[in-house]
């Protein structure tokens, strides 16, 4: 008898994080209500929302700093347990370092807390210092360093134990453009190597380009979540930027809901389901068109449309 080999199924990677209907209240204030989300390996996930919307509370529950009142937290495919925290790197919004400690000692200490051997921690700290261009600072005390330099040290402390889940709360705040770009490149590399990265920020424009998936939070509730393209595709392209030369009478076209005319360039908001092609024809008939771009809404606009409120930046 011959046996037929069963087809081998491709290994299914478990989500790195699964939050299932978690809630947390402090006294009478509801911080998070029935929030669910899932973060896959090798993705950048944006946890977005205004200040005070419940992002930090969600992260704290995710990594066990606080416990949810209800709901469940799964890390690396298993119910939450402290042992899995050695695979997590967390950069909180409220950053802190021991001011009197030397940078290298501090990094080794943090590495050891994450389960690294001191010699390995020292080696990794050195490598990361070179990568983040702070080798001259490693023998100095933290209090002697600039704020930007201290930020870089915190990034190293977050990443040096090679975590599979990297959680960054407002990672770019306080960074100059050069260092922000350095961090951005580093994170993109890490994502490509299969790490899951969670961004939490109220500056949606900063992470819009980088994230593969998002969850928009408002007053503790998830108001919008899913893959970035999917979320955006759910919202109509109803904004037009047009560069033209000539008569601007096309701005009175019935498809136009509102517009801003800068003379030679106009930003137009279309009526729902309006025909953008008809507007293009009308514009081309009265003026020379250099650019006609049907813009997709920004995350911030989507958020405002969804909750009907502005973000308090």
């Amino acid at each position, binding site marked *: 008898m011959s046996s037929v080999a069963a087809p081998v199924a491709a290994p299914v990677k478990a989500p790195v994080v699964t939050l299932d209907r978690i809630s947390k209240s402090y006294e009478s204030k509801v911080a998070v209500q029935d929030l669910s989300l899932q973060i896959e390996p090798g993705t950048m996930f944006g946890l977005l929302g205004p200040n005070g919307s419940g992002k930090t509370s969600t992260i704290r529950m995710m990594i066990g*700093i606080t416990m949810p009142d209800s709901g469940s937290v799964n890390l690396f495919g298993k119910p939450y347990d402290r042992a899995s925290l050695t695979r997590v790197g*967390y950069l*909180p919004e409220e950053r*802190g370092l021991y001011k009197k400690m030397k940078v290298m000692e501090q990094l080794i200490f*943090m590495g*050891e807390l994450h389960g690294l051997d001191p010699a390995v921690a020292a080696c990794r700290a050195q490598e990361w210092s070179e990568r983040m261009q702070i080798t001259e600072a490693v023998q100095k005390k933290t209090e002697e360093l600039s704020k930007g330099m201290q930020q870089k040290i915190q990034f190293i402390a977050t990443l040096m134990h090679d975590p599979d889940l990297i959680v960054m709360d407002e990672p770019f705040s306080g960074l100059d453009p050069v260092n922000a770009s350095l961090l951005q490149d580093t994170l993109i590399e890490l994502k490509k190597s299969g790490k899951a990265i969670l961004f939490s920020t109220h500056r949606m424009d900063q992470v819009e380009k980088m994230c593969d998936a998002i969850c928009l939070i408002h007053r503790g509730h998830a108001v919008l979540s899913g893959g970035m393209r999917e979320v955006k595709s759910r919202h109509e392209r109803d904004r037009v930027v047009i560069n033209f030369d000539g008569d601007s009478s096309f701005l009175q076209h019935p498809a136009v809901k509102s517009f801003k005319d800068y003379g030679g360039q106009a930003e137009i908001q279309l009526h729902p389901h309006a025909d953008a092609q008809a507007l293009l024809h009308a514009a081309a008939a009265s003026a020379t068109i250099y650019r006609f771009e049907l813009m997709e809404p920004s995350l911030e606009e989507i958020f405002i449309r969804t909750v009907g409120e502005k973000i308090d930046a």
Partner: protein
Amino acid sequence: MRSIWLIARREYLEQIRGKAFRVTTILIPVVFGVVMAVAILPSKYWGTGKHIAVAAQDPALAMRVRDQLVADKEAKITVDVVAPATAVDRQKLHDEMDSKQIDGFVWIDAPASGKEQVTYVSRSAGDLTTEDRLQSDVNRALVEQRLVDRGNPSSAVASLTGNVDITTMLYRDGKEVPSSVLSTLFLGYGMAFLLTFSLVMYGMNVGRSVIQEKTSRIFEVMLSTVKSSDMLAGKLIGIGAVGLTQILIWIALGAILLSSALVTSWMAVMAKPQIPVVEIILLCIYFVLGYALYSAFFAGLAATCDTEQELQQYAPLAAVPVWLSFGMFMYILSNPNSIWSVLVSMFPPTAPITMAFRFTAQFPPAWQIALSLALMVLGIYIVLWLSSRLYRVGILMYGKRATLPEMIRWLRYS
């Protein structure tokens, strides 16, 4: 356990390497020495160098009082004699006091029949030492005079009224060892002083360390890898080890100092203090337990504060048991086994200091030491339980000091 060890090691090394450790290791014994010197040295000169007059109708009595007063070499007193004194002389003495020629005068009325009346008129009201000296010297002069008046020869009178010195011995472990009230006072006060300083200082150090971590916002980073209870335990162990190191340095320095020739000659006047090894070990145990109690208390409070200034406002809470202990210092030394002495040495916040007093006065029964240690462990357990709950919630609360109702709510959080 590994996290606790790592955190304790970090705390220990940071504090030991710090300037504050070096400064306090040297400064505290120096401050203690200065405090003792300020307390002891002026007392040797209290009431000395006075210029007084002795006025009596009987010149022999007046001379006898004068002789007694000037015989006291330590007093360095100058004595004028006015005898036989009249009402006019009294007015003259007032004038001399007005012109500050004399500090005061002793007026002795000695009627032929009846008891002598002695008055001391002085320009200062609070000179207890001079009053004490006059009390004994005038009385002795009067006794001698009465003995002479009754026909006793002067030489016999001197031998009859001569002083004897009392040598104090301490009976301990079946042996008599030299002791003195002064050395007991010195030792008891010294041990309690160092213990108090260390307990309160290191308790506050733990509080300050919590505040610093809270203001530097490092807690959130730490809490993503270690439990808050491990952080608290590591901190208490690390800073406690620093305190213990400092106390051992002081004990070693003290031992070297006590065996040095300089101190031997200086202390020749009083018996050298005897500190049995068992007392040193017990003092170290009381330090560790007292430290755990005070530091757990301060750690919990510090977690509810946002600044060191706010924490300072709680410091008097720790000072109350210290004041209470020192307030009972003389009482415990005189009555080491009275019910009050036993009670305060059983009460955990006052036990370390009051037990140090009792050790120097009379070694307490073993069951009392065991009970006091057991009560301390129980006290630590309760304070640690409360503090760890306040700590766990408080370290993540920024912005303002927690009110009492808020703290009570935090205790209820699971």
